[in-house]
């Protein structure tokens, strides 16, 4: 080894650096130990840095760490060479390594300064921690909100659904809530993200899609009643659709809510039916009388003919007249039977256009005779109105019959106080511009106490004794007229001869929208 050192020294003519230190062992030891330690440390740092960069691939400017590693390895090498040159004066080699170190340092320093603004912009761990905390808080709040909304969505008794308007304009279910699932028997999981046309039975799909189209194209909320055939059976829903638009104003989503009104509808129909039956009940006596009349006439005329035939007193003319009369009486009975039949029927016939005058006429015919027996006269005037209205004629007839029976009750009650009464005036008239038909029923039964006037249309409001009045007549009448798009009101009137009474006025629109499509557009 000493020989080798001498050779190097000899070839270059340098002396080892140890000479400068006078080969003092203590100083040599200090230098050797320090440089070795620095070198080893410097060599270990790049390993750590490289390891760090390899493991944390997300670290920004990782190449900078590699630059550091290179520069530190170079530094470390100079220190090892400094130990080496204590004995071997390879100053050329040492100089070269230093030059490499200088270049690496310079590059690293330059890169560092160049990167400085960007490094400064990097968030500090403290900052990151604060941001994280804020984010966590936000997430908690959002989660709470989401929980609140989803608990609304999931627990509300109202059936809710979200329909997505697809780019091609078609509709798909985004979500339906459990209430809707319960009410319809549809499976939320199977419905999710499915096109409406595939998710429902064809008929139901066609019916709801037409509503979605109306909401999509109209861009406004709509509400309507619909009858749907569902897995749970036929149900009636009151549904509301609300469009959700994107920034461009295009409808991208439809929020829907529906209330199952099947039961309410049924009860309503039942109440109408009950009152109809009640009206029918009060009419039953009159009907029996009406039926016994023609039957009686028939019996009398046929017996008469038979008797004359036996006595050889039946001339052909008389026979013909009698038989014609008998046939007329059977017609009269057939009409009555028809009437009772249709009157008791559940739906009261379909919606149709008809002239109200005809209804008034038939209501009058139904009670005229019966009322005449009680000296109550029904006076018709101006029943030539021609304008048609839309609705169920029998329902309107029921309303008018109830007005008659109220008038009759009032007249009888007034007579009990020894005052004269006994007239019901009926008038039907078209208004001048052909928009409305008005039906007026006026009686001379003394009028209504002004303090109860506002309540007479309330269900179950009656001033009559138990068993006489149900208090349903006017409220149901109100419902029926309202359903036809009309109005009914009452006011007290003074009549000639100092008589007083009530005038009910029914105003019906002549061309209402077709009722099957009657939607209340929320404009």
């Amino acid at each position, binding site marked *: 080894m000493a020989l080798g050192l001498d050779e190097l020294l000899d070839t270059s003519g340098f002396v080892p650096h140890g000479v400068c230190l006078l080969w003092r062992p203590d100083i040599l030891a200090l230098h050797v130990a320090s440089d070795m330690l620095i070198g080893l440390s410097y060599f270990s740092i790049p390993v750590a840095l490289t390891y760090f960069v390899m493991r944390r691939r997300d670290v920004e400017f990782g190449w900078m760490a590699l630059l550091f590693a290179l520069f530190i390895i170079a530094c470390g090498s100079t220190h090892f060479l400094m130990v080496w040159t204590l004995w071997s004066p390879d100053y050329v080699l040492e100089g070269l390594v230093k030059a490499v170190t200088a270049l690496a340092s310079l590059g690293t320093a330059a890169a560092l300064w160049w990167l400085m603004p960007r490094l400064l912009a990097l968030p500090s761990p403290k900052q990151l921690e604060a941001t994280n905390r804020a984010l966590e808080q936000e997430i908690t709040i959002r989660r709470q909100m989401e929980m609140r909304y989803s608990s609304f969505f999931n627990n509300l008794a109202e059936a809710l659904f979200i329909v997505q308007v697809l780019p091609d304009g078609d509709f798909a279910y985004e979500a339906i809530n459990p209430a809707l699932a319960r009410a319809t028997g549809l499976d939320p999981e199977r419905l999710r993200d499915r096109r409406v046309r595939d998710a429902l039975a064809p008929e139901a799909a066609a019916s709801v899609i037409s509503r979605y189209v109306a909401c999509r194209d109209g861009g406004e909320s709509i509400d309507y009643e619909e009858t749907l055939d569902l897995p749970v059976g036929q149900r009636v829903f009151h549904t509301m659709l609300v469009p959700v638009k994107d920034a461009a104003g295009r409808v991208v989503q439809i929020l829907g809510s529906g209330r199952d009104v099947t039961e309410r509808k049924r009860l309503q129909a039942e109440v109408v039916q009950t009152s109809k039956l009640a009206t029918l009940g009060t009419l039953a006596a009159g009907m029996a009388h009406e039926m016994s*009349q023609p039957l*009686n006439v028939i019996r*009398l005329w046929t017996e008469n003919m038979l008797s004359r035939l036996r006595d050889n007193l039946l001339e052909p003319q008389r026979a013909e007249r009698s038989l014609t009369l008998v046939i007329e009486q059977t017609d009269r009975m057939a009409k009555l039977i028809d009437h009772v039949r249709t009157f008791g029927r559940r739906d009261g016939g379909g919606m149709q256009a008809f002239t109200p005058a005809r209804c008034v006429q038939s209501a009058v015919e139904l009670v005229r005779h019966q009322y005449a027996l009680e000296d109550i006269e029904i006076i018709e005037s101006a029943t030539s109105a021609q304008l048609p209205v839309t609705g169920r004629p029998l329902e309107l007839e029921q309303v008018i019959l109830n007005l008659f029976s109220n008038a009759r009750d009032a007249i009888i009650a007034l007579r009990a106080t020894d005052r004269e009464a006994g007239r019901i005036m009926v008038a039907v008239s078209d208004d001048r511009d052909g928009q409305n038909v008005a039906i007026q029923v006026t009686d001379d039964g003394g009028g209504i106490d002004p303090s109860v006037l506002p309540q007479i249309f309330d269900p179950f409001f009656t001033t009559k004794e138990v068993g006489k009045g149900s208090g349903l007549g006017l409220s149901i009448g109100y419902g029926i007229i309202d359903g036809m798009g009309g109005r009914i009101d009452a006011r007290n009137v003074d009549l000639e001869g100092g008589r007083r009474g009530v005038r009910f006025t029914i105003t019906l629109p002549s061309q209402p929208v077709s009722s099957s499509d009657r939607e209340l557009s929320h404009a």
Partner: protein
Amino acid sequence: MPDPLHILIAEDEVLAAMALEDFLSLKGFRVTVAANGAEALERYGREQVHALVTDLRMPRMDGQTLIREIRDRDAALPVVVMTGYLTEDSDLKHERWKPLEILSKPVNPRIICETLHRMLGLPLEA
């Protein structure tokens, strides 16, 4: 031939009254028709009447009132009631209205005729 017996009919249904009038006339009665209770009572006041055939439901004065008015004046006048209702006769079934017979509608004019014969003590026809 003795003067025919006079029957007063109170009936508001014109066609029924006409047929009954014709039938009873053929059987030898003199017949007067009144369209309601008030008119019948007025005819009763003016003429001698041997029997009353009356409806119950009539305008102006019903059959029940008519019978009450007539019983006040004549306790023995035969009365035949034609009615479509059973409930309405209940009170009329009472003894105090006798002689009174109730026939329900549709009535058989032959039965009316027979009833009148019996009540008036006439020989029944063959």
